[in-house]
């Protein structure tokens, strides 16, 4: 007796359809699974029989062989529990084979026959739609997630009984439409709540408009974290495509918490004790996305940048370049998307008060040197905007007028991004931050005044080649925000002002 259904295994974030065949033949009662099953799939052998019997269905007291095809693909995850169970039910004709055909089954089962919430459902649905399959049968807790994929009949089930009932036509699933999540009331965070700090608010706007990474250097309590948390509020809404990508990553990491589709741009702020695997993804059996991937299409905030492990920071170069992370383990390698805006924050010196007008710095010069050494390096080269966040005096705080709201700023950001997309449509990039240096010099279109100012800056501000390219890219974004075709002197001046205290001090540091 033979049965065949389709399941999906999720490797990384990608769903891969798996044909699950069951053969029930003569021999002592046993269940064998072939076809490169991973540890979780091996476990299914002992889990499925009690689950089926608990659902008041019959488990064949004969020799059962389950084969997972293609045989060269490693199968991971408990999501294959359900298709294995159904394949046996099809083989024993407890479920009509025709009814099971054309569906994808996915979900972990309990010994009581319940179908449990399972990570990666949206990836399963995407894989099913891509394969042209009619519908997916998934845990009811994840049904909303699967329903985000267009053109797919989604059936949410809570138990094996319901699966069988559905296939026999004796049970109807709940309407998915009622479950579709509304936009969560946008969090209360708004850029207008940040008092003073006009320059920093403006820098966030520039970062959002040009897709630039941002480093904030400032004393403790200056407001670095408060500012960083509000960057997502001025970024354009996720497109449907982007939202699906981000949702897949959060689904496999089990962070969706019942939501269907991520609507807000993610904001991830890992603690500085995070391991390299935690930041970039990894794990011994099941490869999970790291914080950098969970920040995909959103913001990755690294507070106290100097405290992070050096190797973890260095490893961020790959996603910053390529927008993805390749994790390689003995079992194979997996690629996670990771295109995020990096926001890093650091104190200006070990004690935190260098350059603060109200408190004096207690660090020795060599301590400051060593500290700043930690902040330099390859990661810093990929951060276009560097910013000093001053701790405001009482008068500066009280005298500050309320700033613009996030919505107003976001409108300008969206307009600036549209200009960039149109301009770079032939280049295959979307924003100024991704411009390669030589092209940036050509595409920026500087006025003669702007050229002159930039030339003087090279001489007097000790701009390096890389620093020069950064200023041009940022100036281009400033011009885009102003709706200007050409980059003027004003735009270059603003771009030049985005430097850290370190860079400002460099002239004198060389002197003493």
């Amino acid at each position, binding site marked *: 007796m033979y049965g065949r259904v389709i399941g999906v295994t999720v490797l990384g974030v990608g769903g891969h359809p798996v044909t699950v065949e069951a053969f029930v033949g003569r021999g002592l009662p046993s269940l064998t699974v072939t076809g490169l099953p991973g540890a979780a799939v091996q476990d299914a052998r002992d889990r499925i029989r009690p689950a089926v019997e608990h659902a008041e269905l019959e488990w064949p007291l004969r020799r059962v062989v389950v084969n997972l095809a293609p045989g060269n693909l490693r199968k991971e995850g408990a999501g294959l529990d359900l298709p294995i169970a159904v394949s046996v039910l099809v083989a024993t004709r407890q479920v009509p084979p025709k009814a099971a055909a054309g569906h994808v089954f996915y979900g972990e089962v309990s010994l009581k026959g319940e179908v449990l919430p399972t990570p990666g459902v949206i990836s399963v649905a995407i894989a099913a739609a891509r394969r042209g399959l009619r519908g997916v049968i998934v845990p009811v807790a994840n049904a909303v997630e699967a329903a985000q994929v267009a053109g797919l009949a989604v059936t949410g089930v809570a138990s094996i009984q319901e699966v069988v009932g559905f296939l026999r036509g004796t049970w109807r699933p709940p309407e998915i439409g009622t479950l579709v999540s509304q936009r969560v009331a946008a969090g209360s965070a708004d850029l207008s709540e940040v008092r003073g700090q006009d*320059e920093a608010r403006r820098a966030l706007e520039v970062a959002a408009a040009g897709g630039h990474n941002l480093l904030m250097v*400032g004393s403790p309590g200056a407001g670095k974290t408060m500012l960083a948390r509000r960057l997502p509020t001025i970024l354009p809404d996720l497109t449907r495509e982007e939202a699906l990508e981000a949702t897949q990553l959060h689904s496999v990491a089990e962070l969706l918490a019942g939501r269907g589709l991520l609507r807000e741009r993610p904001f991830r702020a890992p603690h500085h004790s995070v391991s390299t695997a935690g930041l970039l993804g990894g794990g011994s059996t099941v490869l999970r996305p790291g914080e950098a991937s969970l920040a995909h299409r959103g913001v990755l905030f690294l507070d106290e940048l100097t405290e992070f492990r050096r190797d973890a920071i260095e490893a961020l170069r790959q996603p910053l370049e390529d927008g993805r992370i390749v994790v390689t383990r003995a079992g194979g390698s997996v690629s996670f998307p990771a295109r995020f805006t990096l926001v890093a924050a650091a104190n200006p010196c070990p004690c935190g008060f260098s350059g603060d*007008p109200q408190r004096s710095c207690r660090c020795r*010069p060599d301590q400051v040197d060593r500290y700043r050494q930690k902040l330099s390096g390859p990661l810093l080269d990929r951060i276009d905007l560097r910013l000093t966040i001053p701790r405001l005096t009482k008068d500066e705080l009280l005298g500050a007028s309320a700033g613009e709201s996030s919505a107003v700023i976001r409108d300008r950001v969206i307009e600036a991004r549209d200009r960039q997309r149109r301009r770079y449509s032939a280049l295959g990039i979307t924003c100024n931050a991704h411009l390669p240096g030589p092209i940036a010099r050509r595409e920026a279109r500087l006025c003669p005044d702007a050229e002159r100012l930039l030339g003087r800056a090279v001489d007097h501000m000790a701009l390096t080649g890389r620093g020069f390219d950064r200023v041009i890219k940022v100036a281009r974004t400033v011009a885009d925000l102003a709706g200007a075709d050409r980059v003027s002197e004003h735009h270059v001046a603003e771009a030049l002002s985005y430097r850290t205290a370190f860079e400002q001090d460099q002239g004198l540091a060389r*002197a003493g």
Partner: protein
Amino acid sequence: MPADAPVPAGLPEGLGRGPGETDALLLLRCLLGPTPRSLHALVWSAGSASRALARIRSGGAGSDNDRSFLTNTDVIAIRSGLDRAGARLAAPGDPDYCPAFLRLADPPIAVFVRGRVLDHGDDRVAVVGSRRPTNTGMEVALDLGRGLALAGVVTVSGGAVGIDAAAHRGALDAGGVTVAVLGSGIDVAHPARNRDLFQRIEASGTLVSEYPPGTPAEPFRFPARNRLIAALSRGVVVVEGAAKSGTRITAEHAVDLGLDVFAVPGPVTSPLAETPLGLIRDGATMIRGTADLLEDLRLEGAASGERALPRGLSADEGKVLASLATSMLPSAVAAATGIPVADTLTVLIALEIRGLVRGVGGRFERTFKAAATQPGA
């Protein structure tokens, strides 16, 4: 001589001269136990270097550490160590031994020297100050070093970071000569970040240390070092220094030696202004910068050429510069001048490129250059 009798000033006649005396002086000066003051007292009570050494060997002075050092060391090894470091011993009467040292209450019995032979015809002025100065302090020290160099004066200072290093660099960059008095051994580059600077100083000027090769830098040696800085100079300029600082000690030595003391004032609220302001109150000469110093030293200021008012300041640039009373946020400057924020930023950056304004921690402030070019503004 009774033990409690006051130690005479200067050093015994012919100290370190004659057979065996030079070696004895070298060995004495290589002992790390006795302080400069106790060595001075010892050579007076013993009468000569070799007799002082004998007294230590016999247990009449010094410590067990000194005696074990003397039994384990020989003069030849010390001399070859000095040669390796490119250093030499300067005994009283040697060209490298500054005669003014003898005016100190506790003159060094000898010093170690590297680089050019000290020229006693040189006009030397010390520039001293904090190891953690403000940006303004750094700029003032750089400019003082440059101004002194252009006027043909040798700058004397310590070897520390901050004001010391800035004064040396200012002078060296202008082609001048400097003398650095170290608080560590003559071959010990401390702090390490000043290694390059010491090489530059040695190439044209002189490094001086009272301590034998290999002596690590330790804070308790710096006050003694400061008396040599004062003694080498005809005047001492204090740029920035906290209330109880080495800078203050150098100035006090200068007063004891009857030298001119100059001080650059700072805000009354600044801890780094405490020493200069205290000195001014006690009668030191207040100077606002290099021009004042050269005038008071009756020197022709070649540096004044550097001070020409920058030409071509636009109306907005003038307004912005005039409004920068303290360190201000760009938005505050915009509010004070009535110039739109974007234009204010452009003006500030243009001024920064010209070196008249500097960005510090997100705010902007005037540089020393701007202060000197805007009298009364």
